[in-house]
């Protein structure tokens, strides 16, 4: 038994976290910088946030990104739930291994490849690139994450509960909604949050599949940074960080089981 962390542990944790979070802290701090110069502290100010509110292009980008996140996360969660149920509940069916592999491939596939192939698909289909092509691409990208999260919960979900519902006169589909879904709801919510945040901070795939009028926030930030960093970018990035942190935080909270509720 060890009592608390040793000095070495403390130092390594401190260094590791420092390495991870120093740039982010710096970015957040400088978003409140009164000076126009990014690297010189000129006192506290929220004027860049005010400027942001007047920057219509930036506001458009934020709105597009949030809508994309809402739509693609919802689509990915619904499809991911169906896929997870198919994988966990239907036992062995022909092509099950292939189906599993294909669902999980995008997890390890380089984003550039995924973006490129989606682009080729849209071009081949003659689709006008725009908001909906990005939405579909994001749903595709986040579907596998959603499936993996929901599948993990469904595997440990007691099958006898569904059987008990059916035994008491409940048809299978209604039993899914009345018993299974409440049981896996935390995982479904977490999957949605994960999909939402993934969509929110995606740059690569959106760059491939977006068209005129569907520039997302990460795309806007990236293109502005190439012209030089200004504190307004720091402000909008801080907002993005806040939203993502909130999303991940909520996902963690809902996945944590309320005290006393047994597994299963």
């Amino acid at each position, binding site marked *: 038994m060890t009592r608390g962390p040793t000095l070495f542990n403390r130092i390594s944790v401190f260094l590791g976290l420092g390495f991870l979070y120093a740039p982010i802290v710096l970015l957040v701090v400088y978003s409140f910088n009164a000076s126009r110069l990014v690297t010189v502290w000129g006192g506290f100010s929220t004027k860049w946030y005010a400027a942001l509110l007047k920057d219509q292009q930036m506001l458009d980008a934020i709105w597009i990104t949030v809508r994309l996140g809402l739509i693609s996360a919802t689509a990915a969660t619904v499809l991911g739930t169906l896929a997870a149920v198919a994988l966990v509940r239907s036992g062995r069916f022909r092509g099950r291994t292939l189906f599993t592999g294909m669902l999980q491939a995008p997890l390890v596939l380089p984003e550039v490849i995924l973006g490129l192939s989606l682009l080729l698909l849209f071009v081949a289909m003659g689709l006008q690139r725009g908001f909906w092509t990005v939405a579909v691409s994001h749903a595709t990208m986040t579907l596998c994450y959603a499936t993996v999260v929901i599948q993990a919960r469904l595997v440990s979900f*007691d099958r*006898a*509960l569904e*059987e*008990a*519902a*059916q*035994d*008491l*006169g*409940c*048809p*299978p589909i209604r*039993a899914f909604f009345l*018993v299974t879904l*409440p*049981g896996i709801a935390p995982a479904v919510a977490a999957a949605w949050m994960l999909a939402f945040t993934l969509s929110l901070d995606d740059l690569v795939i959106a760059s491939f599949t977006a068209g005129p009028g569907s520039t997302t926030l990460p795309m806007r930030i990236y293109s502005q940074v190439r012209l030089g960093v200004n504190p307004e970018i720091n402000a909008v990035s801080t907002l993005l960080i806040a939203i993502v942190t909130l999303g991940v935080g909520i996902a963690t909270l809902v996945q944590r089981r309320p005290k*006393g*509720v*047994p597994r*299963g």
Partner: protein
Amino acid sequence: MNDPARPRLNIGAIRESFAPWADPNAAPLVRFEGVYKQFGDETAVKGVSFDIYEGEFFALLGPSGCGKTTLMRMLAGFEAPDAGRVSLGGQDLAGQPPHRRPVNMMFQSYALFPHLSVEQNIGFGLSQQGLPRAEIRARVEETLALVKLEGLGRRRPHQLSGGQRQRVALARAIAPRPKMLLLDEPLAALDKKLREETQFELMRLQQTLGMTFLIVTHDQEEAMVVADRIAVMSAGEIAQIGRPAEIYETPNSRYVADFIGDVNLFEGRVTGADGTKVRLGSNDCPAGLEALEDDHLAMGSPVWLAVRPEKLKLHLDPPGETANRLSGKVVDYGYLGDWTTYVVELASGRTVRAAVANVSRLVERPIGYGDPVWLTFAPDGAVVLTR
């Protein structure tokens, strides 16, 4: 013994006259006909046929893995037989999904819905029938009272003790008033005292509701206490069906004799049979063994004699030279309070268990290790087994 023993006697007396299986005109409620079930390359159920009658308390008894749960799940609709028929009220159940079958199951794991309150759990089956809310409420209250859980309706399952959860599971299964209740090892998770009490609760409930109960258990005492009839299973087959006393007193095979209670088995060969009695020659008893048996067994055929420990009489002084007289010495004994079990080693090397009721508190000649003793039994206390 203590209080719960009383209803047992009453119910036992009432149930003596209940024997629809003996009536050739009675139609069974449930009929299994030549049912087979295969899992991969393992056959879990091998051609099982039996009937269960309306109002019966029927027990499936057997060791772990013998196919009890599988049989029950076929009745509930969660498994389909590979061959044979399962019918309810004369109708073949094949193709009927679980939610259309008028039987309810109490799961071994209870399978209570964790996100619903006790009331909602119990009302689940009723609301599936589309009953009006007021009626559901009334029936839930009534069922709560029936299983003595008044006042706990608003709790969640995880706020209950194991025994209370067990009763919620029971209440949930009986609330929709199914034609038949299936109980898969309903008492396995309870401690001994609670289990005994609950056995009487189950019997009382079955009588009050007039419902047919099918219970699966591997506890032979439990089956003996609650059931009208017991089917003893062995590796996917039914070894014997009968009233508890029939199975105990007249087992049809060494397997059943050994599975139900303690038994001493003596191996021998037929040396004489006259249609009422059979005589055996055996290494265990030089004077020969004798038992009641109306079958004419072939001379010289190998048979076994099953004698329950309590049918053996223990003597400290040699009794007269008769049949069924064994001699040996005590190698072990266990004091159980009401009984003492003596393990006696015969000259042949076989050990025999004899149970002696402790009728008196004073013992004038205590029996100890190595003491020479004699055992006898009446010819009607032994059962002749041919397999």
